[in-house]
Each structure stands twice: as C-alpha cells, then as structure tokens.
C-alpha cells in the first residue's frame, strides 16, 4: 500500500513585490495538485473613471495607477490618443519620450534587482539584512535609483506621478544645458550598470527552463520603448490595433486581476526576458558585448536569470540616455495641438515589467467613451502560475520553509506589480423580475 502525503505551500502575504497578493500551492505526493496566485488587492476601476473625461486627462489619471511605472502609463495613454486623433509627433519630442522611459527603467529595474530580488540570491530575508553585509551594493543601488529619478523629475515635472507629459508632447521641455547637467551622473550609472551585469551573472541560478511564448514590441531600428509591432517567437506579428483579436482577458475566481492569454494558445511571457530574446540584435554594442562576456544568449528560458537581463537593460537604458542627451536639440515646440475629434486609438509601450496596452474610444468632443488598459502583470499572471506548477513539482522533497521561499523567488522573477494589475472588476448585476409588481 502506498501512502500519499499532501503538503501545502501557503504564503498569506507575498514579500518584496509591488502590491499585495498571496500564494497557495497544494502538493499531493509527487504531483502539484493546485496553484493559485491570489491577488487580493482591491480593484481600482480606472477604466470606468476615465469614461466621460476629456482625453487630455488620460495621461495624468492613468499615471496614478502606479508609483513605480507612471511614465509607461502616460506614454501608452498619450500614444493611443495620438493615434485616435491622427497626430504626428516631432522627432525631438519622441527622443525625449525615450529618455523619459530610460529614467523610469533605471529607477524600476534598480529597485527590483537590488532591493527586492537580490536578497533571494544572497540568502537574506530583505534588503535591510542584506545591507549589513553588502553595504556597497545598497549604496550603488540608492545612487542608481536617484539618477533614474533625476531624469524622470526633469522631464516629468516632479519625481512621482509626473505631470509634464501630455497628448501631443510635453507641457514643457528641458533646455540643452539641463540635459547636459545629467550627463556625468548617467555616465556613472552606465559604469555601475556594467558592474551590475557582472555581479548578477556570477549568482547561482536553479536549473529551470521553460518553453515560453515571448511577447514584446519590436522596432526596426531600436530596442523597444514606445513603438513597434507586437511580435512573439510563435509567429505573432501584429499592430497594436489588432491586439484584441489575439489576446483575451479571463476572470478567475481566486484573483482580483484578470488573466490574459493568447487566443487558442494560453499563457505567454512579457518583460525583460521577452524583450531580450526577441530584440537582442537591437541592443547597443556595449550591452551585446556584455551579454556575450557573461555567456547570456537569446533566448533566455530560465526565469531566474531575469535578474541578469534586467541588469543588461539597465546598461541599455543608461547608454540610450547618454546618446539622447548628447544629440539633444530642443524641439521647435513642446507639443503639437490636439484638437477634439472622434476616433479609436490603441498603443502598446514597454513598461519595465513588459507590454502595457491602452485603447481609447473618443467622441467628437474628445470625451472618452471607453477605455481599456491591460498592464504587464495581468499578462504575466497565468505564466507565473504555470512556472510555479512546474517548479513546485521539483521541490516536493524540500523542507517546506525552503520550498516556500523558492516559490516566492520564482514569483519575484517577474517583478510583479500587483497594484497595476487590479484595476478591473467584472460586475454582474443580477435582476430578479419575479420581485417586481
């Protein structure tokens, strides 16, 4: 007779993620019987909030969705509305928007890589414990984050929930000297990022690979931020306007965030691993050279190595920022006029955690009739559960506490931003006509 044991991995409050979620995994003998990433942070109704507002409000309202990646929200909103209105953006404004994204990536990747993810690899409960033994790492992280923050503050008008970006451009653009003032700091950040790549590449990684469908933007000339077609390693190649034909959001009972899947295929992965795997050839030579030096070649199928890829994207963001600062000529006008006009527009940008889709339908007065926002974490959510289903099965013989930690680390591979993901609740109003008289 065989006795089948049952073990449960339960984490009521996930640590070192943005927002609030819980994890439940049931192991039955050698088998993973159930995996649920429970996002219990309350829904936030942003799409409903936008209805009836003028399109010019959308970048500022959606920036409030996230304190970590407000720039991505502003960019997706502005680009989608500009497409609805048929606006063309000045090339110099476009470059400033890329610089704006560089600042956000530097801030966000530094925060996740050093403060949230690194303690897993070095065996500390949190960054405070890690700092006692690795003071130099934390000092480097604080300075890197501060530099990303300087870029965002200069372009966005303030350090959190920026207010300067708008439909058509910016309310105000910096002078050449203001950008030049950043140069020394960003050069330091580039050097620090190179050190970060070498340091992360030397960490120990579990032997775990998955056959992902990677989904990311791809641009003919650039590592993607705000433009490009949406592609995957399984043949997807679409414009943002076709997004809804290929992706669908599903409600699941255990989460306040919707699960997004590729129609007919299932889960997919967005974020650094997808961008790197689909756009390696678009990285600047310095980042490609470093990737070769540390033996990282696309596709990267081990999600634990995302910490190295994030570091490489830090190098990219710093190098790109320096390039833009060096070539900068202020645009003739900070923004083009955005007249009231009816229309529908969609845009996808690359937030630090992956693609962020916005769609707006406008009436002839420029008021928003409908808004749709699909953040990266809801797109990765099902993929996280799929990873855990595979990974937890390899941990059945481990002591429960260690297995639990490892599963949490597997979630942190994705740098999930749970607050972003919980913006939607499907509300069903049930009416009982029999009660009417």
């Amino acid at each position, binding site marked *: 007779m065989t006795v089948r044991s049952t073990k449960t991995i339960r984490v009521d*409050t*996930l*640590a*070192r*993620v*943005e*927002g*609030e979620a819980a994890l439940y995994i049931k192991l039955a003998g050698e088998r993973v019987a159930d995996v649920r990433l429970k996002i219990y942070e309350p829904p936030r109704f942003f799409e409903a909030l936008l209805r009836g507002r003028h399109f010019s409000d959308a970048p500022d309202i959606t920036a409030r969705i996230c*304190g*970590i990646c407000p720039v991505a929200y502003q960019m997706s909103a502005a680009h989608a509305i500009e497409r609805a209105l048929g606006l063309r953006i000045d090339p110099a404004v476009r470059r400033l928007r890329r610089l704006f994204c560089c600042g956000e990536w530097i801030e966000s990747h530094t*925060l996740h890589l050093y*403060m*949230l993810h690194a303690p897993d690899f070095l065996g500390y*409960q*949190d*960054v*405070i*414990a890690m*700092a*006692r033994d690795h*003071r130099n790492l*934390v*000092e480097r992280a*604080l300075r890197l*984050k*501060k530099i990303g*923050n300087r870029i965002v503050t200069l372009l966005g008008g303030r*350090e*959190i929930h920026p207010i300067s970006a708008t439909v058509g451009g910016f309310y105000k653009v910096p002078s050449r000297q203001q950008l030049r003032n950043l140069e020394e700091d960003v050069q330091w950040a580039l050097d620090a990022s190179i050190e970060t790549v070498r340091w992360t590449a030397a960490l120990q990684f579990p032997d775990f690979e998955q056959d992902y469908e990677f989904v990311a933007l791809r641009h003919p000339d650039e590592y993607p931020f705000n433009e490009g077609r949406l592609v995957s390693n399984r043949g997807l190649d679409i414009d943002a306007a076709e997004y809804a034909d290929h992706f669908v959001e599903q409600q699941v009972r255990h989460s306040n965030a919707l699960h997004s899947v590729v129609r007919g295929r299932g889960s997919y992965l967005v974020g650094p691993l997808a961008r790197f795997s689909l756009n390696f050839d678009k990285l600047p030579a310095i980042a490609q050279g470093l990737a070769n030096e540390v033996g990282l070649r696309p596709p990267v199928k081990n999600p634990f190595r995302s910490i190295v890829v994030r570091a490489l994207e830090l190098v990219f963001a710093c190098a790109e920022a320096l390039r833009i600062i060096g070539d900068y000529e202020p645009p003739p006008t900070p923004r083009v006029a955005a007249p009231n006009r009816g229309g529908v527009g969609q845009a996808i940008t690359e937030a630090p955690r992956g693609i962020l889709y916005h769609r707006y339908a406008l009436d002839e007065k420029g008021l928003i009739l409908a808004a749709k926002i699909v953040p990266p974490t809801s797109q990765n959510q099902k993929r996280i559960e799929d990873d855990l289903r595979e990974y937890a099965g390899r941990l059945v013989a481990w002591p429960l506490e260690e297995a639990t930690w490892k599963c949490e680390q597997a979630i942190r591979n994705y740098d999930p931003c*749970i*607050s972003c993901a919980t913006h939607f609740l499907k509300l069903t109003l049930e009416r009982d006509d029999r009660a009417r008289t």
Partner: protein
Amino acid sequence: MRIICCGNRERGDDAAGVLVGERLRDLGIEAQTVTRDAFSLIKAWTGAEDVVVVDTVTTNAPAGKVHVWKNAQFIVPRRRTSSTHGFGVAEAIELARAIGCLPARLRLYGIEGKKFGFGNEVSPEVRHGVAEVVRKIAAEVKIPQGLV
C-alpha cells in the same frame, strides 16, 4: 537643521507630517515633504548632519499623542515587509543604519494616527498633534511662540 515631513495627503491621518510641513513653510521655516518610499527619505537626508523627520505613527497610544524619538531610541518593530508599499520610515532608518548613512543627529516626531481611509479628512486629535509638533519645531528654530 533639515526638516523632512512624510505622509500622504489623501489617506486620512497619514497627512499629519505633510500638514506640519505646510504650517512650517507658512512660518518661513524650510521643510521638505517626502511622499514617496523609504529610499526617497534616505535621499532627502543625505548630506545633512542634523535632521528632524515628522510622520504619522501607530503605537496603540491615543490619537494625536506626539512621540519624540532620538537616534539611539529608535526601537523599530521588525515586521516582514509585505511589499514596497510597506517600506516606510522605520525601514528607512534601519536601512540607513545598516549602510552607515544615518545623520549624526536624527529626531523623529511621530504623531499618533487612528484613521487611514481614503480622503483628506484628518482626525481632530491629530490636528492638535500637528499644532503641537509645529510649536516644538518652531521653538527649536527660535520662532517666537506668539507667531506660531
């Protein structure tokens, strides 16, 4: 002396530090407001030797009570930080201590809060606490009490 006031104007009593900052600036006293995470707090005090931090606290004391802690007195109840959203003043102090960048002189004025829901309504007791902290800091920088 660098004065750093923390809080969130949109979450009830969590506004206490921000309100102190506004009142101090009205009196002509320079005071920064930090509404971001703990890392921003460390950034705000970097380079200063004498720092005052003001924030709302919860210690189970009556609402509005003003606590004053000095460098060595910080007893930070270590809890598992549930997310970066929970990484606050206590964690900033611990992190700064770990990497050796605590200001030489640091005082924390904590105003006991009781309601942290959405909106900018602040409890009357907490408003008294705000006034008390403004008086104490104004006295430190030698603003005549009649003007406060």
